[in-house]
């Protein structure tokens, strides 16, 4: 059963790769090459060589806590941890190999051991509340309502942490930047035709409004942190320009990518290319590629939405 399930997962991955357009494949290869180069360049430079294994371990932990097939695998396999460990090891393998080639250090052990350790971590379903009151502050859309119901405490906690750490250089800016990046990328489901057509807006107007509302919402939430940071660090206040300029682009990339493959009530596919696009907003040398991708997504989204919203053109 282990082999069959693993083979099935490989098959699904290969099929997803095959379904990428030629442009998507080129972007994927470019991003992967750039990622490998970034690992190669950074894995022997302090302090990055210490940060990298930690970041990889955190990434695997995040995957483990978020994976949707966790309970399915536990039901199906007698030792699901073996499958999890193998998958996580495949994620860590490029980091391990490149580090071993460039600068073997004891830190390589983290790449080798973290997958196995994280794979055995148990996951429990938290007891769910059955009801909730409406939010008292205005939410831009139902996706954000859903996000705040699921991770509101975490988001408020991170914002407070960013506010509290404003005295330290750069930390608050990084927290805000990553928060917006991950929060706006958290949806993988398309709404129904009813909701899409509710406002009776043409495609371009619909998309612009969606992006504008999200940008306004996250600007309102993060502005106090950025202003306080700028006030406390007048000489390096220009740091806040990074989230001010790039966060709206991240949001535009996420929203556009979602609607570029929109199909009513379906789970969104093509998340790999979106993840790569967002990677560009994390690795500065890839930022130009991501900005180009964002523009491509935007026009793709308008084209795709026109299939459903053409009736509202005036």
């Amino acid at each position: 059963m282990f082999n069959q399930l693993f083979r099935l997962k490989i098959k699904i991955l290969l099929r997803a790769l095959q379904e990428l357009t030629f442009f998507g494949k080129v972007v994927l290869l470019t991003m992967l090459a750039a990622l490998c180069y970034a690992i190669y360049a950074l894995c022997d430079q302090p302090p990055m060589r210490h940060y990298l294994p930690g970041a990889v371990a955190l990434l695997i932990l995040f995957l483990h806590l978020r994976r949707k097939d966790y309970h399915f695998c536990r039901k199906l396999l007698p030792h699901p941890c073996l499958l999890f460990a193998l998958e996580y090891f495949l994620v860590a393998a490029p980091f391990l190999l490149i580090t071993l080639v460039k600068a073997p250090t004891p830190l390589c052990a983290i790449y080798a051991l973290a997958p196995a350790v994280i794979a055995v971590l148990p996951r429990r379903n938290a007891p769910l509340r059955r009801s909730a009151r409406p939010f008292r502050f205005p939410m831009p859309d139902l996706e954000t309502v859903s996000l705040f119901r699921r991770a509101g405490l975490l988001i408020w906690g991170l914002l407070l942490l960013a506010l509290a750490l404003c005295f330290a250089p750069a930390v608050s800016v990084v927290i805000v930047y990553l928060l917006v990046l991950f929060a706006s990328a958290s949806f993988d489901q398309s709404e129904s035709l009813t909701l899409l057509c509710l406002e009776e807006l043409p495609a371009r107007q619909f998309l612009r409004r969606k992006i504008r509302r999200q940008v306004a919402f996250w600007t309102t939430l993060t502005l106090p942190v950025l202003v306080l940071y700028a006030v406390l660090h007048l000489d390096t206040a220009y740091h806040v320009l990074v989230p001010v300029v790039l966060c709206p682009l991240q949001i535009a990339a996420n929203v556009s990518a979602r609607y570029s493959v929109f199909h009513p009530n379906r789970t969104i596919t093509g998340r790999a290319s979106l993840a790569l696009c967002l990677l560009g907003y994390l690795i500065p040398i890839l930022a130009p590629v991501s900005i180009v991708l964002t523009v491509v997504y935007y026009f793709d989204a308008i084209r795709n939405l026109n299939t459903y919203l053409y009736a509202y053109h005036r």
Partner: protein
Amino acid sequence: MLTIDKLSAAYGTHVVLSDLDLTLEDGRIYGIVGFNGAGKTTLLNAIYGVPAQQDCIRYDGEPLSRAAIAYLETDSFFYPRITGRDYLSLFRCKYASFDFETLGSVFNLPLDDFVDSYSTGMKKKLALMGILSQEKRILMLDEPFNGLDLESVSVLQLILRRLAGAGKLVIVTSHILESLSPLCDAIHLLQDGRIFQSYLPVEYGLLAEKLRTDISARYDGAITKVFAE
């Protein structure tokens, strides 16, 4: 009056609707029945203009505008961890005069509970509330009775009759004849990509008989083979 004149629809090479003709009058309730895959949803999608508006569909002689239609899809999607009230707030913004609270209590829906905790029927009722709140002249409901309990089916039938009485055109699809026969002014049987025949209430017995005969002819052999013992 909604008129459809020689409507065709296909998915790739698979033809679903072929030269379908249909005339539906305002103030009446029409049922569309057919087996799974007969093209009921495709027909409603075509009327709604998905994927593209067809010139052959006209309303009062003019090309049909989507703005005139409220459309309940077969499956209703709800974001995780939203409450019924969150969902309805979207409709409330646009249709503020509609009494969501009363209809919520009629449908017995706990609007402050998360939709994740709703049963299939409750989700259907929530989606229906959104659709019913829209002040549109044409109401299209795709399998609205799926998952509804007996009481809710009766309530929905009552509501639809009231809306038809107010002059709205109501189109309801189902693969279960029994849910349509007490409600509809006429039922159209969709078969082989076209309206095979239209039945008035006095002829519903004939329709039921025809469906039974068709099913027997189609599946009796296979069922006997599987359950020979």
